[in-house]
């Protein structure tokens, strides 16, 4: 097959390759330290409550942005919840934490745990898009060996059949 003009331009173009490898060591901060400590040691998930509007936030943070009130009260939230949004990813991605390609397909969703007013991204065990739906009940599957990170939850398991 003849080379297209675009391909010719690309072949002839001079380019300088540059590999950027940047390492960071992020502080967890007080809120994450408490959250992940609880997750690692007790397999429990915590949120913080706004004293003004009573919203419970997961992830925890210093202030409720809606009321601008300091969130000091820690409350446990369930390890069960509902899917706010969900998908099965087919496009291969480089996992930024490992530099390796994440195997596809994988389930990925926004999960709102019972007791929390906000939701969080996490993986789903299910990889068939026909077996997941918005509103579906799910439960966190904890790893036996936990290190204090969100991956201490391996993924979420769906608790009911798809509609």
């Amino acid at each position, binding site marked *: 097959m003849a080379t297209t003009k675009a391909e010719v331009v690309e072949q002839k173009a001079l380019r300088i390759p540059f590999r950027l490898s940047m390492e960071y060591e992020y502080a967890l901060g007080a809120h994450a330290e408490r959250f992940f400590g609880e997750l690692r040691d007790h397999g429990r998930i915590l949120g913080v409550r706004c004293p003004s509007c009573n919203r419970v*936030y997961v992830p925890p943070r210093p202030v409720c942005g809606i009321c601008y009130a300091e969130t000091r009260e820690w409350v446990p939230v369930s390890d069960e919840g509902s899917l706010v*949004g969900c*998908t099965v990813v*087919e*496009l291969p991605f480089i996992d930024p934490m490992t530099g390796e390609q994440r195997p596809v397909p994988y389930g990925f969703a*926004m999960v709102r745990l019972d007791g929390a007013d*906000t939701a969080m*991204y996490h993986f789903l065990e299910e990889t068939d898009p026909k077996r997941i739906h918005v509103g579906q009940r799910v439960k966190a599957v904890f790893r036996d060996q936990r290190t204090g990170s*969100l991956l201490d939850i391996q993924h979420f398991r769906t608790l009911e059949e798809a509609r």
Partner: protein
Amino acid sequence: MGRKVGIVATGQTKHGPKRLDVNLRELITEAVTRALEDAGLRMEDVDAVFLGNMEPFEGFMFPELWSVEGWGGYLKPSVKFNTGGTVGTTTTMAAYYYVAAGLYDTVLAVGFEKQSDGHTQAAITTVGDPVWERTMMAGAVGNFAVMASTYIHESGVTPEQAAKVAVKARRNACNNEYAHLQMPNLTVEEVLASQILAHPIRKLDMCPQSDGAVAMVIAEESKARKLAPRPAWIRAVATAHEQQYMGDSPKRLAIMRSQIAASQKVYKAVGITNPRKELDVAEIYEVATYAEMAMYENLGFCERGHGGKLIDEGVTSMNGELPVNPSGGVLSTNPIGATAMIRVAEAALQVMGKAGTRQVPNVRTALATGYGGNAWTDALILASN
């Protein structure tokens, strides 16, 4: 409020997947030169330059400083912004405020990105908070797929309706000599047959990654009147940001708090109560087909849940009641540092009557929006008076 401020000229590069014929500085120069020519100005006539770009996409810190001659910055005041997808509108708004404040009379706003220089998906993944979100990130595609699923659940929009949005965009782009993706014969069937990236988002539902730049000349009233027969006056601007994490607004696309708030602010500022009727054209920042329909609802173009109906009825097509994205939108062109500013430039072209074959007749009032960050919104109203 401050002085009246108008957009008097624009310049864009030919946006494309890989502009291998230019380096970053040359890409910027292409847009800036065209804007100055359009205005009939020389660089000496420009008081200050405002720049927007997302450095991680080029793997280059202060790329604008390296490119300084490319935008005529030597010994000129300049400020650089970085706010994600909204950076183009953020930068436009900054230029507006400085001129309205009387600090400068004639300025350049420039947005640029050379996605092909770097690794787009990696730089999007690092948008995720490293402690709470990054491990889970599945790029813009995964994010939009999850958001789309919520919107579909709320509204019942169908893949066919989404495909119609894709067709409208890529066909509109054929009237835009600068657009990256131009597909005159695209059909709904082709969109529905394109590769699934993350359910329900297919390849043709998503915006591309582009190399491109845009520049606009913005001036205070008396200078603007001399520079253009019909300036696009910046009548109202608003920004609304969000809480910190991506799940804080769980229905974040379907019911986008920031978009509702920012658009309400600008409508109120100019006395618009029925945007569908009172706007003549809109250039909105739609990253994916489903997002465009959700935005119709958030921006008040239709009732909740009727985003799909609007596209079915052709209300937002070129000869509809409120054409949306005559330029082809983000779905056709997406150099992230420029994209939101391209919305403003295209809306300005419409108001100025300089939009060529994509001109909507008799435009007096236009809306331009930016989207980015954690579902943040910028909104601007441009008008002929």
